[in-house]
């Protein structure tokens, strides 16, 4: 008896699968182009990272290449160029986190305090624009302004001051990097903070003002707590991508400041793999970067949960 009822249940399940297929087949067809794109340009390449554990050469197929375990990673950490790239990456990431991260928040506060809607819209239009320019354009524009023969040095020269090597000095390169990122993305980064500010209940401010709280106290007790979840969320996401400091930005300025200064993990992977032909080393560098980034996100999220924040996903219900 039980076996026959199980059989009917199974049959019913199969029937429901078949009926769902009949109902949803067109939706499944619609998933094919996107699914194919994901497969070809995301999931298969992800599996391709296996060459980091192989001694891959272009005349092998990936299936034929001999496995060498973690040998490539050991080699990686013995390579002074990799260690240099790692050190540079961490330095630039730290500069970005400390100097760039607060800028969109401050900018959002300034814009939020602009009382004229028309001025506010005009200002927003201006500062969002650079986000849509390519890195090539941004670097080209910076070069025209700050380069050795650029506009600023043109003015300095007229005033009898020697040209300042803004674009080629290795010492100030981290600051230049932050300045470029700020020019390109500080405005755009503000959007999400403006949304957070707009979501704060205005009546809170009004009641606080009526109760005698001044500007500073309202900012401290209402604005800041209102923005905190968004700030924490973005901080965690930033930590996760901290090792991706911007491939295009660095490779474009490599000639100007020298390879030693502009070498970061991504450019190392490119020059070792694509240019140098050591594909396995390049892939190992990329993979090491990805793993560290993932660990950073998970740790930061854990810390956020312990501090009672939501983080990327909601923690334990409280």
């Amino acid at each position, binding site marked *: 008896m039980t076996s026959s009822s199980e059989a009917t249940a199974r049959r019913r399940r199969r029937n429901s699968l078949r009926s769902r297929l009949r109902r949803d087949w067109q939706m499944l067809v619609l998933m094919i182009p996107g*699914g194919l794109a994901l497969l070809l340009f995301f999931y298969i*390449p992800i599996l*391709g990272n296996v060459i980091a554990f192989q001694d891959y050469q272009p005349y092998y197929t990936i299936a034929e290449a001999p496995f060498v375990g973690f040998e490539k990673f050991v080699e990686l950490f013995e390579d002074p160029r990799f260690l240099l790239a790692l050190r540079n990456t961490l330095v630039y990431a730290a500069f970005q986190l400390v100097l760039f991260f607060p800028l969109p928040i401050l900018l959002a506060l300034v814009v939020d305090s602009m009382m004229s809607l028309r001025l506010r*819209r005009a200002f927003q239009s201006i*500062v*969002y624009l650079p986000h*849509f320019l390519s890195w090539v354009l941004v670097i080209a524009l910076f070069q025209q302004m700050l380069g050795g023969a650029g506009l600023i040095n043109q003015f300095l020269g007229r005033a009898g001051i020697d040209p300042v090597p803004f674009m080629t000095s290795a010492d100030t390169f981290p600051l230049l990097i932050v300045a470029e990122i700020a020019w390109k993305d500080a405005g755009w980064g503000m959007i999400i903070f403006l949304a957070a500010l707009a979501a704060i209940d*205005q009546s809170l401010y009004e009641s606080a003002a009526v109760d005698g709280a001044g500007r500073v106290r309202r900012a401290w007790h209402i604005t800041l707590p209102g923005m905190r979840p968004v700030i924490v969320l973005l901080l965690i996401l930033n930590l996760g991508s901290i090792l991706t400091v911007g491939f295009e930005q660095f490779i474009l300025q490599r000639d100007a400041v020298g390879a030693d200064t502009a070498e970061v993990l991504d450019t190392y992977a490119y020059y070792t793999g694509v240019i140098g032909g050591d594909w396995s080393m390049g892939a190992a560098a990329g993979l090491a970067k990805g793993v560290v980034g993932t660990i950073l*996100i998970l740790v930061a999220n854990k810390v956020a949960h312990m501090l009672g924040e939501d983080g990327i996903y909601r923690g334990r219900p409280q």
Partner: protein
Amino acid sequence: MSTSTDPRHGAVRSGAAEPPGERPARPSAATSRRQSLHRRLWGTVAGHSERPAWMEAPSRPLAIAKGIVIVTISLAVLVPMLVVVSTSFASGEQIREAGGYVLFPTDPSLEAYRTIFASPLVFRALGVSVFITVVGTLLALFVTICMAYALSRPVLGGKVMLMAIILTLFFTPGLIPMFLMVKQLGLLDSVWSLILPGVFAGFNFIVMRSFFMGIPTELTEAARIDGASDFRILRSIVLPLSKAVIAVVGLFYAVGFWNSFFNAMLYINDQSLWPIQMILRSYVIQGTSLTADQLGVQQSAPPQSIKMAVVVVALAPIVAIYPFLQKYFSKGVITGAIKG
């Protein structure tokens, strides 16, 4: 949220529907009738102040500091573009006199543009960029719309697919495996290597899907009861209602394809297949000079303005579509999706 009426604009706005970056209109101060002449003049330039009654006016030093910050930032964004455009129109004489860059061309000429459009190298690069932008955007919209619609309702396998897409937001396969994949597909030195890897972006998918999910189910269900298939519903009901989101996602894709540089550097060796960003890198950032041969004409415009004209040609399409893009920021299409 409460709904407040703004007497000056005569519009009723509800706080919940308000796009981000603008807060619900504040009740105006009753003193507007007694505005000074100064205030009224300022108002026609900058629009009316939206300061609520309870908020104190900023102190003078604070207001001045804020004004300086706002003006400085605006100039920092606009001046470089202005200088580049001006210099591209300037005559050689004026450039020599100024020492390289010109703020306003006194004697504007189109010579630099005539030169670069006559150059087979630049002209071809523009052709490549236009091709990958147009074809890439159309293809990407097709792929993204199909996927977003399929996952906008609970369907078989939908959850797995959604998870598979969300993962792409947090990870990248890495540069070397991507290169090997493109090579394996035989796309090296083909314009398709600049198009195909970019036809599906997780972020754009999420924007699109959350818009589709906001379409009232009554509409689609009614069509279904009348016997319309899913394809039919997508074509005749969902798409006509989604013009705004299709426009904004399309513009996002278009900007991405126009700006593509990294892929070109990786996958394209053949100079005749370079997109405009590669030309820009080579001739402006690296300072390789365009030879008369590559230009295809006797170089008559000053080299500096030719360089700047190349910058302008890469910049202009973005600035031209920017107003259309920008229209949708204020509608909250994008931030709505981020929040949801």
